[in-house]
């Protein structure tokens, strides 16, 4: 068994992030069971639904690469949604809301980063607490009731298409591409990789470890701001519950994509396919009439298997 695991072929197969296998498997299942579902229009609608998650994942993979985690994204999404839908800023333009969302996200990300990078407090607890505060704040401001409507321009943009592909999907794709180029070409990208591999070695090699972690969290906050805009455009109304499960799903998709705390073999496209796998999973489950409980169980099993797949490989390679 151990000898089998070290053969070059098996090693090459296990180096591919689990997301690709899950995605391919689900695609085959769908192709056999419901071939009529596999056309650009139907898939476009399903994939469009996960675009906010896909954007949020870009920030999550960044912080997970530097051995941290961000669970405050749900709070950012809720807060931005509240700003846009509550009428706190009457008659404000689209540009104003976009800037507001990005500034809000960036500031919250910076706060996370300072707490984690400088104070070295636990990333789980810090971002969780920040998320709790934001959710509580929004629920207090709106007295627990959905605030109001989102300006119609958001939904109009969300519903546009470029050929057969919905524009939110294209936006997500471009953003992912930008992140991939940024991480592979920029100095900061190298810093992220080296901090992830070994913070101690990175420190003694002159990599500004603290600053890298702080910037990674600030960027993750900025990206959460973008995700909040996409999410708000997609639901088109104010809500006090929107996006609360997204941070956890983002962690799950990132792991499925082969990026685990500090180990970034999945790159940026692994998590991208992780998100697509979740989208496809929901399609398959819905077409087979499997309800909410079944989806939860399947999600959990997939996360666990993906992590086991990686964990086992880590033991063997050492």
């Amino acid at each position: 068994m151990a000898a089998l695991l070290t053969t070059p072929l098996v090693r090459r197969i296990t180096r591919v992030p689990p997301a690709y296998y899950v995605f391919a498997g689900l695609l085959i299942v769908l192709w056999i069971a419901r071939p009529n579902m596999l056309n650009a229009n139907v898939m476009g609608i399903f994939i469009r639904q996960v675009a906010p998650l896909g954007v949020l994942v870009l920030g999550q993979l960044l912080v997970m690469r530097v051995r941290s985690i961000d669970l405050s994204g749900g709070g950012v999404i809720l807060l931005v949604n509240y700003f846009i839908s509550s009428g706190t800023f009457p008659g404000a333009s689209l540009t104003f809301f976009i800037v507001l969302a990005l500034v809000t996200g960036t500031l919250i990300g910076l706060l996370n980063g300072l707490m984690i990078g400088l104070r070295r407090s636990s990333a789980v607890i810090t971002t969780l607490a920040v998320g709790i505060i934001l959710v509580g704040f929004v629920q207090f401001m709106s007295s627990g009731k959905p605030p109001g409507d989102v300006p119609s321009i958001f939904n109009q943009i969300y519903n546009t298409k470029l050929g057969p592909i919905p524009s939110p999907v294209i936006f997500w794709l471009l953003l992912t591409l930008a992140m991939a180029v940024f991480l592979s070409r920029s100095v900061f990208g190298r810093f992220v990789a080296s901090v992830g591999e070994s913070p101690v070695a990175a420190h003694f090699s002159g990599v500004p470890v603290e600053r890298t972690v702080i910037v990674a969290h600030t960027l993750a906050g900025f990206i959460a701001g973008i995700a909040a805009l996409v999410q708000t455009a997609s639901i088109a109304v104010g809500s006090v519950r929107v996006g609360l499960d997204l941070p956890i799903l983002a962690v799950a998709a990132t792991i499925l994509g082969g990026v685990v705390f500090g180990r970034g073999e999945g790159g940026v496209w692994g998590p991208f396919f992780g998100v697509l796998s979740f989208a496809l999973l929901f399609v398959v489950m819905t077409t087979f009439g499997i309800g909410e409980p079944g989806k939860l169980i399947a999600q959990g099993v997939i996360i666990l298997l993906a992590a086991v797949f990686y964990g086992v490989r880590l033991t063997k390679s050492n």
Partner: protein
Amino acid sequence: MPEARPSAMTNPLARLASANRGRQGLWLVPLVLAVLLAIALTLRTSQFLTSENLLNLVAQAMPLTITAIGQLFVILVGGLDLSVGSVISFTTAVLALGAPGYVLVPAVFLLAALIGLTNGFAVTRLNVHPIIATLAMQYIVLGITRVLRPVAGGTVPDVVIASVSGSFLGLPMPVYWGIVVIILAWKLLYGSRFGLHLFAIGGGMAAGTEDAARNFGIATKRNIMLAYVACSCFAALAGVFLAGRIVSGDPNVGLLFELDAITAVAIGGTQLSGGIGSLHGTIIGSVVLALLSNGMNLLNVSPFVQTVIKGGILLFVIGLQSRKKMGL
């Protein structure tokens, strides 16, 4: 990596914290906080210092305290269990299946031990990160719970209801629950080899020498696995208590309990990197949370503001404990 910055020492609160370091963690600050809260509430409201409200407080704090104590075992060895909330809901759902109590009560602990064993196995033998393993388990157990009981309902065995309501020798039952749980946890943590080994394993992990405990001959993996089993079983105990209180099975009763439990442990001065922490700190942390919600209910503070204040306190307390290493 650079050591904790010297400026932390000039901060009076940080100095208080470091005076109280050692293996027990920072538990004096939350104790002061709890006393101040109790005094403030006694002065501000007439209802706080009534026997009725205090007993209410004990009953309200009990599930959280039990869950937090379980969480402490796992956190001491540098882990985290996000599945406890689901285990609580699952326990109430199983108890409401309609079979007699002598079948269901042992069954829930057996099932919880199995869940804990799976968590522990994934973490120690399959090398899965604790957050990921228990997150996956949270989904799986919640899914099974929703299959068993899609909406709240059913009735739980009489013995479970009797164990939490009514009184014995003039004291209400929740008080006995508290005493038994604390004695049990005290014995496990401070009166057994198991507890000593947990501190040793966690201390080594926090110092970055994962092998330290194993080199001293401690069965690291087995003990970590048992810590997860203990955590799940304490969560099941909290589930039994809650099922007795609400007299039915509820798939949502444990929702977000894991967050409150981690908050309580963190407020109690336990370090999430492992090795440093205490049972009394965790109990104080749970009491602070219970006092907060009880007091703010008496003062008619909106539950949403309570959430904000809870998060703020968590952020403040976590900011006090500066660590050597960055991380989860």
